[in-house]
């Protein structure tokens, strides 16, 4: 159990180190002055004195390893850099955006897992029937559909067409709302992006659950349970499902990166003011420090979610809990 967590810890530390080092090296390794990337393309218009001061701030006149130490030190203090284009510290920009993404990703993941796992269970139970094969076909179709395209169609049909949902954003701007109206307003803005992200996340969960369930149903203890006359319902939920959920939990963690990636594109389509939309805006504006900080924060969030999942894993799998 401890060894399992320690191994995971090393893995996440290495991922973090990779992200940090990449962020550090990219602007410094590109041809031309790193200032173009650290400050922005209008560095040419900046007075020489100010430019020299920024050079000093980043330690650009010093050896690379000293720059790296300065960089690490700043990061450790929660300093994600400064967006010269927006004239604000990046940490502040990201803190404004992060809650929206967490809301979107969190709810979609929860919903997609519930639906996907139940659906996969039912399909595996009815293995080989038209229900099972049809489900597989639908799942593969949605796995192959570009998420942003699905979002665009949803906007065209449900928002612009029927007018059931707002077309963009996360809240109505300029109208003061309170109480229930405030909540309803946020939920109506959340509905379409969440539906899109959920729909493209379900197939992955469905596939894993179905395969895991098929494997478990072939196990001897399932046959034993059936042959001693345990009710089918109890065999499925009591014996098979509980074991099939284990690989689901593992792949769930592996999928987090994919779901977050999906959110990036979906937020862009819906102009949903989360981290993904921020990344898109930064790419359009060539605001490199923001692109880097966003990548860093997304990586940290994915690692964070992985750690939570790792800590929960022993609870669902007693074998991990008791192993040395």
């Amino acid at each position, binding site marked *: 159990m401890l060894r399992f967590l320690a191994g995971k810890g090393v*893995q996440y530390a*290495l*991922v973090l180190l*990779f*992200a940090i080092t*990449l962020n550090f090296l*990219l*602007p410094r390794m*590109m041809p031309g002055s790193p200032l173009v*990337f650290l400050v922005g393309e209008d560095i040419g218009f900046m007075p020489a004195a100010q430019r020299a001061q920024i050079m000093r701030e980043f330690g650009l006149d010093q050896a690379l390893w000293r720059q790296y130490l300065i960089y690490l030190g700043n990061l450790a203090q929660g300093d994600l850099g400064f967006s010269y284009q927006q004239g604000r510290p990046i940490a502040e920009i990201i803190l404004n955006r992060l809650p929206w993404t967490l809301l979107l990703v969190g709810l979609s993941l929860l919903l997609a897992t519930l639906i996907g796992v139940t659906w996969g269970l039912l399909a595996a*139970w*009815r*293995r*080989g*029937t038209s229900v099972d094969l049809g489900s597989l076909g639908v799942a*593969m*179709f949605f*796995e*192959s*559909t*570009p*998420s*942003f*395209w699905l979002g*665009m*169609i949803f*906007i*065209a049909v449900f928002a*612009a067409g029927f007018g059931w949902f707002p*077309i963009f954003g996360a809240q109505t701007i300029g109208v003061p709302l309170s109480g229930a109206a405030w909540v309803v307003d946020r939920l109506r803005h959340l509905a379409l992006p969440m539906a899109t992200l959920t729909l493209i996340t379900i197939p992955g969960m469905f596939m894993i659950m179905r395969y895991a369930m098929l494997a478990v*149903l*072939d196990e001897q203890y399932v046959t034993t349970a*059936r042959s001693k006359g345990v009710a*089918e319902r109890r065999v499925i939920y009591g014996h098979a499902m509980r074991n099939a959920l284990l690989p689901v939990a593992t792949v769930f963690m*592996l999928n*987090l*990166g*994919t779901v*977050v*990636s*999906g959110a*990036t*594109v979906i937020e*862009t*389509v819906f102009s949903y003011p989360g981290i993904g939309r921020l*990344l*898109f805006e930064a*790419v*359009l504006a*060539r605001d*490199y420090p923001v*692109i*880097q900080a*966003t*990548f860093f924060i*997304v*990586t940290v969030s*994915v*690692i964070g979610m*992985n750690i939570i999942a790792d800590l929960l894993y022993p609870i669902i799998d007693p074998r991990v809990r008791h192993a040395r």
Partner: protein
Amino acid sequence: MRSNAAVKTTAEATDDGAAARAMAPTVRAPRRRFRLGAVGTVGVLLIVMLSSAGGLAPWIAPYDPDETVGDPFEPPSSRHWLGTNDVGRDILSELIYGIRISMTVGFLAAAVSIAIGTLVGIVAGYFSGWVDMLLMRLVDIVLVIPFLPLMILLAAYLGPSFWNIILVIGFLVWARPARVLRAQVLSLRSLDYVDAARALGASSARVLRRHILPGVLSLSLAQFILAASGAILIEASLSFLGLGDPTAKSWGSTLYYAQVRSAFLSGAWKWWVVPPGVLITAAVLGFAFTGYALEEALNPRLQR
């Protein structure tokens, strides 16, 4: 119990087929492992249809996709079946030429990733020990990193170009194939003929080249096709975010311009947004179907 019954029917059907083939003495039974099944056939058909349309683009596309041939935002008509875009170019022609870009990027990116994946998988599986541990650690790390933000970061720095997109995708999606291939190498390595070759004094290089590589190539092919399906989808996402090659418009770029011009707010989405998405889905599905069918036929771990 229902599931068992279903399995039996399938098994019986297969047996009947085999019996029928055995009774026709002049027809040799096809090697079972290369049968693709209905899903695989649909997949191959989709790929063949799309690639031939892409290959024949200059002959079947009604207009030059880079030429202004009408007014901006024209709805579909007999002259422009899918209307025109924001600068008066024919959308249908753009999509037909887009096949070339999307599928080429998918193929080349998949080739890069499978080359890396196969190398890593074989080396890790064959040498085991600390080499294996190190490489699999690397695989774990690559799998945890949120790949799209990383690709966006790299593409933003390297600049949007055809080759940069291919390299960025290729260098970031090799981890899954590496893992699958390593498992295959592990099972191959313990086979008698590999032991025999080693006992006869064959060098590692020779064993790898003559005995291990041929055994994983077919599985590499299945992984290659699955990777191509993923790469097409990723290319579409990157192009949609404005990071595609501006001189070579793929399906994703078409959707980028449709999004920027708010095509979904007017009726234009029916001919400007729907068709490229359907094409992307068809291409991805074609490769995915083929890949899954191949993987199921070739991967001993999936056979029951």
